[in-house]
C-alpha cells in the first residue's frame, strides 16, 4: 500500500492505495465518482477519459500512485453550481448521446480538445476524438455538439 494525495474536482483526498490499483478504480470505488466509466480495460474506448493536471488522459492507463500530487477533474467536476458546462449543455442540445456510456469520456476529451485548439475545423474535431468510441450515435451529433461550443 502507498499513501497518495490527489485533488479531485477541487477536493483534496489522502488515501492508501495498492500500488497496482488503476486510477479509474480509485476514482470509482475509492472516491465513489462513478461518472467515469470503464468500457474496455485496454485503453481503446476512452470512456474513462479524465483531466489530469489539465490534460485529458484515459484513467485506465494510469496507476493511482502515478496521480500522487496531481489535480484531477472528472465529469462530476465540470458543472459549476448546478450550471452545466457549455460542452455538457451542447451534448444534450445536439443529441450527442444515446445510451450515454461514452458521454463522460467524450465530453472530457472534447473540452480538452478545445483548450488546445479553440477553433477546430470539423476534421480537427474528428481527429481529436479518434480515441473515444461511441456505439450508438454514429458520432455526427457529437461532432456537431463540439463544433457548437467551439463556435460559441
Amino acid at each position, binding site marked *: 500500500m502507498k499513501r497518495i494525495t490527489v485533488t479531485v474536482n477541487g477536493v483534496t483526498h489522502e488515501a492508501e492505495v495498492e500500488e497496482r490499483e488503476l486510477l479509474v478504480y480509485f476514482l470509482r470505488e475509492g472516491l465513489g465518482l462513478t461518472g467515469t466509466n470503464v468500457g474496455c*480495460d485496454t485503453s481503446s*474506448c476512452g470512456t474513462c477519459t479524465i483531466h489530469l493536471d489539465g490534460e485529458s488522459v484515459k484513467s485506465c492507463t494510469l496507476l493511482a500512485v502515478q496521480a500522487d500530487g496531481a489535480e484531477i477533474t472528472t465529469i462530476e467536476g465540470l458543472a459549476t453550481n448546478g450550471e452545466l458546462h457549455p460542452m455538457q449543455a451542447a451534448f444534450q442540445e445536439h*443529441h450527442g448521446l444515446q445510451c*450515454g456510456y461514452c458521454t463522460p469520456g467524450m465530453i472530457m476529451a472534447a473540452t480538452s480538445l478545445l483548450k488546445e485548439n479553440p477553433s477546430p475545423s470539423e476534421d480537427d474535431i474528428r481527429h481529436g476524438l479518434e480515441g473515444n*468510441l461511441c456505439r450508438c450515435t454514429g458520432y455526427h451529433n457529437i461532432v456537431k455538439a463540439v463544433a457548437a461550443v467551439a463556435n460559441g
Partner: protein
Amino acid sequence: MSTSGTRVLPLGRIGESVLRADGRPKVRGEFAYASDLGADRMLWGATLRSPHPSARIRGIDITRALTLSGVHAVLTHADVPGRTTYGMEISDQPVLAIDRVRYEGEPVAIVAADHPETARRAIERIVVDYLPEDPLTDPERAIMPGAPRLHPGGNLLRRVTIRHGDPGATAEVVVRGEYAVGMQDQAFLGPEAALAVPAEDGGIDLHVATQWLHVDQGQVAACLGLPPSLTRLHLSGVGGAFGGREDLSMQVHVAMLALHTGRPVKMVYSREESFFGHVHRHPARMEYEHGADRDGRLVYVRARVVLDGGAYASSSTAVVANAATFACGPYDVPNAEVEAIVTYTNNPPCGAMRGFGAVQVAFGHESQMDRLAAELALDPIEIRLRNALATGMRLPTGQLVDGPAPVRELLEGLRDMPLPPDVVPVDPREFPGGVSNSTHGEGTRRGVGVAVGFKNIAFAEGFDDYSTARVRISRDDGGPLVEIHTAAAEVGQGLETVLAQIARTELSLERVRVLPADTQVGSAGSTSASRQTWMTGGAVQLACARLRERLHEAIDGPIEETAVYRHRPTQALDPDTGQGDSLVALAFAAHRAVCDVDVELGIVRAVEIATTQDVGRVMNPLALEGQIHGGIAQGLGLALMEEIQMEEGRVRNASFTDYLMPTVLDMPQVRMRISETPHPHAPYGLNGVGEMPTIASTPAIVAAVRDASGRPLTRVPLRPSDIAGV
C-alpha cells in the same frame, strides 16, 4: 428532413425535437449504469469459464477456492436451486456447466468474495478436470452423418423452407453467387453488470441492464426455484444493447450468490468477459440463384442459407425464420424456393443483433441484384425499380403486403440526391487509411453502390406480443403530474422521451415523469425488433386515452389506468411450405454509399452514405436522425472491419484492441431524406426505425467497393487482401 434549424424543446409533443429525458444526468455523469450500483455489505461475484470449446467435465474441486480468506461462496451446477437450464425459446443452456462444456467461455462455477480481486483469485483456485474433445465448428458438418451430437435432439436447431409459385420455373438470364457473413458483436460500450439484493421475504431484487425484464424474470425465477412474485427485476442504466442483452448473462448467477450468502452481490464483466458473456450475430453462408427475363424482371429466386447457431439455441429459431422470410429481398418474386437452416456447433452461441437475420440475407440478395444488373448492363437502381415490392403484392411466404412498401419511392428519392463532389483528396488525412497510406493516394478509386433493406417490426409467427403501461395523473404544488410506469427498457434509443411526448400529446399536460422500469407492472415485451415505440407507445396512448375520459375525476384525487396494447395477430409459418401471414408490418430503407478505395492496399474510406427511409411518422426528428446515424455505423462496421475471429472454436480477438469497430474518423457523411407514409396498423401511423439503417448500409458499402475495385467481394467484413486481389 433535417433537424438543423429545428428548435429543440425541453418538453414537447410527438413530431417535435425534444431533449432526452435522461440527457441531463447522462452529461453530468450522474446516470446510474448497472456497473455503478452498490449496497451495504456488498460482495463481488466472478465467473469461472471454460477454456475449451468442447470438453467433458469429470470433476470440479472447489476446496482451494473456499479456503481463500474473503471468499463467501463458491457455487457450481449442484447448487442451482431450481431448473438447471435456461433459454428464451428452448431451455437448453445450463446455468452452470453440468457434465460438459459446449463453447469456450461457458460458465462453470461462480464465486462471491469481499473484493473483486479476491473473487478473481478464488476462481483461479478452482480445479476442473476436463477431458477436451475435438470441437464441432462447421455448421454444415454439424448435420452430416458422423458429426457428434451436441444436444439430445440432434444438431439441427431449425430448418425453414419457403416454397412459392412454380418450383420448376426457368429464366433466360441466370446469376449465381455464394456469400458469407462473419460473426459480428454488438459491442455495447457498457459491459454486463448486475446487483442482486436478497430480500427479507425470501425473494430477490435484481437490478440489471437488460432488454426485456419479464423474460428475464421468468427464466431467473425458474432457475432459482422462486415464484415470479418474489423475483423482482429492476432496470438499471443500460450502456447500449443492440440485441446482446436479450439473453440472460449473469442474472441467475448473481442472484444465486446473493441468496446463498444472504448479502447483496454485484457482478461486472470485463470487456474480454463480455465477449464470452453474450450472444453474437450469426455468421452465415448463402448460396443464391436468381433467374430473370431479358428486361431484368425476376422470374425466380432460389436461396440456401446456413446460420451458425453456436452451442445453445438463444433466439436462433426466430433469426432463421427472418433469414428465410427476407432472403429474396424487397422485390416482387413470382417463384421462390428458400431453405434456411441453423445448427448447433461448438462456436459461441449466436442470437439477436440489430437486424436479426435480415442483415445476413440483405448482403446476399443485394449482391445478387447487382450481379443481375451487371449481367444485363442495367443501372443498379434501375434493376431494383423494375422489381420493387409494393403494397398489394405478396411476399414469398404468401403474405399480402397490406401496409406501406414504398421501395420505388425510396429508390427514386435516392436517385435524385446529389452525389458528393468527386475531388481527389489533397490532405493525406483523407486518403483511405489516412496519413499512413503508403501509395499517397495514387491507388485510390471512387466507387458508388446502392442497396435496399427491409425487415419486419415487432414479433412474428403467432407470438402473443403485447405491452403494458400504467399511467397516473395526480396533483401536487406544481399542478397536474403525469406518471408513466412500464417495464419497457430504455437502452439509449430514447424510449422514455417518446413515451413522455405521447402522454403530453394525449393529455395536453406538460409535467410528465417516466418512472423506473421494473416488473411491478405487466410486461412490455422486449426492446428489440424496432418495436418499442409502436408497442409501449401504443400502450401509453391507450392508457392516456382512457384517462382523458376521466380527467374530471382528477380534481378529487389521483386517477390511474393500466392498458395493454397488442398488435394484430400473426400466424405460424407452415412447416412444409413456409406459407403464412407471419408478420405484423414491414419497414424499408434505401442506401447509396460512396467510397474511396485504395485498390492497391485494399483500404476503404467511406465518403458518404445517402439514405431514404420511410418511418411512417416522425416522432422525434432529433432522435430519429441519431438512430439512422448509429445504424449506419454498425452496418459500416460489418462491411469493413467488425468480426469475431474464430479458430477451432476459440475466439482470437476478445478485446477492443483486436475487435475493430468504427471510430469517428471511419464514419462517412450522412445525407438523409425521410418520408412519412402512415402505417395503418400503428399508433399515430408510426413505423419502426432502428434496424433498417444497419441492414441496407452493409451491402451498399460493399457494392461501392466492388464498383471501385472490380473485385467480386463475396464475404463481409471485407479484407484488404480481397479488395487488392492478393
